[in-house]
């Protein structure tokens, strides 16, 4: 196995009793890359990340983190990774500085280095002047940045972030991703899970998870260009009814509601006229119809639809 990869995951599987949480997942994260694990809640993202951190034992398959098999040498892995769990597990009654100091000591950051390292982290996380504030009194975004600082206190070459931006405002989310970018620039490899599709745009590579399986793996642009057909954004009356009609038309691959707009994936340009005619004859006034670039959300929705169609076919066969 090559050591150019920070993470190598091979048929990783986790079962809880009869329930399969992660089903034969494969992917590789090259060093210094940001890998986004995307998918709805319950898709198996957290279970995957916990297995990679050595805190859940895989049922089958294997994972190597920085060259160490995580099932057999979890302690070697733990020394070298940073992990930020979903809950921002900070001690509420400890101050900002005490939380950082605590993790610095647990990771064995040397005494000489500790002072400058903690100062640097406080600076990076924008917590200057709040060192003596108790973690309980911090707002969501600040807690998030403190949790990140705690996770990287020992300068790990690999960073796992589980839903790092959950419950944080959009501006702070952007700032947070800028921090992640700058870490990646310093050579840190990152695996982050998220269910915010827009966030996935920040990643070099995206793995899309659905129902315990990895259903797509590529960079964001390739994922979008691989989407079959053309995406039309339709502005019309009663989009719910329009959706039902569009779904039944030949040449329509996929239909999804996008707020008040309708996203219709069609096989070619000619279908646009067919669609407009069908809606008009049903008495639905059609406004603007535009060809738009697909978002990752469109990609995800269409992949999930394709996935469930193929599963259905398998079951029937």
């Amino acid at each position, binding site marked *: 196995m090559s050591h150019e990869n920070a993470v190598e995951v091979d048929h990783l599987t986790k079962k809880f009793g009869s329930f399969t949480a992660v089903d034969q997942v494969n992917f590789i994260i090259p060093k210094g890359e940001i890998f986004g694990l995307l998918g709805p809640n319950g898709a198996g993202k957290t279970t995957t990340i916990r297995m990679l951190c050595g805190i*859940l034992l895989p049922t089958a398959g294997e994972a190597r983190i920085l060259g160490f098999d995580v099932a057999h040498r979890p302690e070697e892995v733990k020394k070298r990774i940073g992990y930020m769990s979903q809950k921002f597990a*900070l001690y509420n009654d*400890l101050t900002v500085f005490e939380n950082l100091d605590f993790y610095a000591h647990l990771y064995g950051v040397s005494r000489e280095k500790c002072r400058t390292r903690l100062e640097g982290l406080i600076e990076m996380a924008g917590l200057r002047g709040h060192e003596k504030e108790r973690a309980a009194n911090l707002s969501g975004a600040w807690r998030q940045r403190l949790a990140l600082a705690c996770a990287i206190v020992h300068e790990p070459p690999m960073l796992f972030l589980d839903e790092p931006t959950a419950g944080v405002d959009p501006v702070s989310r952007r700032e947070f991703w800028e921090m992640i970018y700058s870490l990646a620039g310093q050579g840190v490899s990152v695996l982050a899970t998220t269910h915010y599709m827009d966030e996935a745009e920040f990643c070099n590579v995206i793995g899309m998870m659905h129902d315990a399986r990895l259903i797509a793996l590529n960079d964001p642009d390739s994922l979008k260009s691989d989407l079959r057909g053309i995406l039309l954004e339709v502005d019309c009356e009663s989009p719910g009814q329009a959706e039902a009609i569009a779904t039944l038309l030949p040449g329509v691959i996929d239909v999804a509601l996008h707020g008040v707009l309708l996203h219709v994936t069609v096989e070619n340009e000619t279908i646009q006229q067919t669609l407009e005619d069908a809606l008009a004859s049903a008495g639905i006034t059609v406004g603007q119809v535009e060809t738009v670039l697909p978002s990752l959300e469109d990609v995800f929705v269409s992949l999930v639809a394709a996935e469930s169609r193929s599963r259905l076919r398998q079951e029937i066969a």
Partner: protein
Amino acid sequence: MNRLWTITRKEFIHIIRDPRTLILVIILPVMMLALLGSAFANEIEHLPMAVADQSKTDASRRFVDRFSASGFFDVTYGVQSEGEIQQLMDQGLVKSGLLIPEEFGRNLSTGNPSAAQFYVDGADPLVAQTAQLAIETISQATSQEILVQQLSSGPFPMELRLPIDSHVRFLYNPNLRRMNFLIPGLIALILQVQALLLTAFAIVREREQGTLEQLIVTPLRPWELMLGKILPFILVAMVNIAMTVAVGHLWFGVEVAGSVTLLFVLSLVFLSSALGLGVLISTISRNQMQAMYMSTFIILPAVMLSGLIFPRENMPRLVYWAGYLMPVTHFLEVIRGIILKGVGINYLWQNVWPLVIFGVVVFLASVLLFHKRL
């Protein structure tokens, strides 16, 4: 070592940042001792007694005087009949009664046997037994005296001596003060409950808060976590010992007959094992509810089977031996030995080594059962 100290320091901060809990943890054991100690403080004496003296003679009055002079009984009501005695007892105004029949004085002076009827409220067996014993002892002593008097003043006077003159000397606790027995037991009980509860939530709380997940991705070793959780509470529990022993002395007048230093050292041994048991509970519990239940069901037998309340000598053999599996059973011997008897380590060693072994086993079990996984 560095990581152990880091955990210990963090736990200290948790304790200090929560002053309300800290005050409870320090004050409640002392209050508990004061409360429970006071509740059982009264020795069984000065039982109110109703007397119906139908004889009304010199002899009958002397007989009654013996009861009030003993200190066990206070003659609070003088009545006429058995019915009145019963009435007073029904109302709970007296715990005992004495009916002296009319012929009592006459029979005595003619040398015939005379009877006296006693009544005892049997509702509380402990009170009843004590009263019965006191009544029998006083009556017998009086009978002996009268007998000796009659024989020596009869037509053939003779020098009389009782064939057996028994003397009982109480070693330890010469005044048979119940407090001297009770207070060390209560201190042991309070320390047991305290130690178990202090650490029973130590790990499971972090599990529920989600901070445990963060801890187990660090290079922290299980033994460092366990010991780091115990150490700060040893200090807290030592404060508890000092304060309860002080209250026992200053309030209840129970002095430590033996070495106070030895008491502290051996309490430390007991506390380490009790705190370790709490950590073990915390390790195997998945949530705080489970930890609480397990603690309760460990505390109950500890109270009942350790000899704290009921003497172990009367228990079935199996239960008796099972009692030895609990550290508090051994600690009771230790604390009563030092406070009551003033014995040294030579006599206590047989109770100390089980405490040490228990502590080591419990600690190893916690370390082995704690997996650095979820």
